């Protein structure tokens, strides 16, 4: 009897912790899923982290965005990866939309847009990231790693803006 009593109390306390964790949102560290590179065995079961799905995740870098100096269209590599799950690290640009749940990912931190110029527009290494959990989205100055389904090509997307590189259903981790 004593054992079952202790067990029940423990389970109830655990659910209390679960509740506290799901509700408490510290400013810079949103709830996130484990990313492929993380050791699966270190997943914290008690805090409800879901296991990453077992599909191939392709790591990409900012150099993969364009072929050489041609910035009028995406690289062949990225075009081939359309619809696949990719992962990439970068920094949050200062433009984000909490209601629609997206932010801009840029290669280097800083408030300035290093590639902007006065005349006309030309495409940059910038990716719009649509997050899976908009309620957890907050601006952070830290480096982030994003994982999601990639789409490339110039079009007006769900944000109502024209973009060239998009990531959908994305998880993002703040890197220490």
């Amino acid at each position, binding site marked *: *009897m*004593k054992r079952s*009593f*202790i067990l*029940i*109390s*423990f*389970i*109830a*306390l655990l*659910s*209390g912790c*679960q*509740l*506290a964790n*799901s*509700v*408490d*949102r*510290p*400013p*810079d560290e949103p709830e996130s899923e484990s990313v492929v590179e993380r050791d699966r065995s270190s997943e914290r079961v008690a805090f409800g982290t879901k296991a990453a799905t077992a599909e191939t995740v392709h790591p990409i870098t900012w150099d993969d965005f364009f072929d050489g100096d041609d910035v009028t269209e995406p690289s062949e590599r990225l075009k081939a990866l359309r619809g696949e799950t990719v992962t990439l690290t970068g920094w949050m*640009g*200062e*433009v*984000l*939309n*909490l*209601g629609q749940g997206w932010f*801009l990912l840029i290669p280097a931190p800083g408030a*300035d*847009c290093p590639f*902007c110029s*006065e005349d006309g*527009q030309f495409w*940059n290494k*910038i990716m*719009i990231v649509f997050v899976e959990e*908009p*309620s957890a*989205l*907050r*601006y952070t100055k830290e480096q982030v790693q994003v994982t999601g389904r990639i789409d490339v090509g110039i079009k007006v997307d769900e*944000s*109502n*803006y*024209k*973009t060239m590189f998009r990531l959908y259903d994305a998880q993002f981790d703040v890197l220490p």
Partner: protein
Amino acid sequence: MSLWRLTWKNMWHERSLLLLAMSTVALVTALLVFVQLASDEIEESAKRGYGPYELVIGHEGSPLSLVLHTFYHVGEPLGNVPYEVYEYVARSPWKDVAYPMTRGDSYDGFPLIGTDVNYFKTRYGALAIEGATYEQTGDVVIGSHVARATGLTVGDTFYASHGAADGHAHDEMPFTVTGILPPFGTADDRALWTTLDYAWHVHAEESDEEELTEGPITSIVVVPSGLMELQQLEQMMNERDGVQAVYSGKTASELLSVVDQGRAFVYVVTVVSFVIAGLSIMLALLAVGASRAKDIALLRLLGRSRSFITRSIVLEGALVTGIGSLVGIVGGHVIAAFVSPVIYDRFGIAIDAWTFQPMESLLVIGSIGVGMLVSFVPARRAYRVDPLTLIER
């Protein structure tokens, strides 16, 4: 006699003490529920609070202050920018639409805002307005909450007051209500809207200066033509002296981060309070247990097992916290219902008092767990009662 009935009878016998213990749990739970409701609403509000206007330009200073008074109509603007700043934006290729806004007066505590009437169409789509929109200086259209709170209707006239709600009224310039806006579910419901030039008109009347057709602008809200263009415009504007351009989304996010921290703090306080509440229950159960030692010995003599006795005590603990937390949850919603009109009036935050969240059931379960945990000590004491103590002389 069943376990439930005996436990209930025992609890009823000691109801004053147990009610006290229960109310500590109820209070803590109510606080938690209320904070959750309020912060949920703040978050929702912040998210839909600025519509498609990704950029806002105004007098240099705190970005948060600019966003707050422009979109949430909270706080006072600290300065204006010259009209030609707006002209620059209007001429630039980086904007899709941009509206200038002026602000300074208020009526009955609600701000009076002058802007292009197309501001509403861009943000909310086609308007189903009662009456007509404003056309000439002095015409005013009022938000739905303003109509409810002040009783103004189409055709009424009033005088605005400069600055705070109890500032002096301008005798020279009456305003006429031409229409009432439909409810938007945003802070715009709490404002009065008129032509851009009203503030310049009033100022000219007051100081006998020449009336301006192009006066100082409080804020410019911008829908950019693209994401690159948005960043371009932000950069250009920030290079100017006395001007700041602010990303609405990022600032809202920063506002929410502050709210997050506030909420985290409240959670810490709540956890501590829960611990205290749990301890108070343990004390109550121990006190009750001491007076019940003879009863326990009797039950054991009759043949009731030790497990029966301890189960009864654990059940008691669970019931005290379980009922306490249920009362607290209802109480939290009731408090929210009472307080929300006041909060909306002052801050534009409309707390929906009667949404029940999934976390609330977890809260009840967690409380019951705490109740069972703290009854461990009194239960152990009861377990050890030797029935022979009752009959040994």
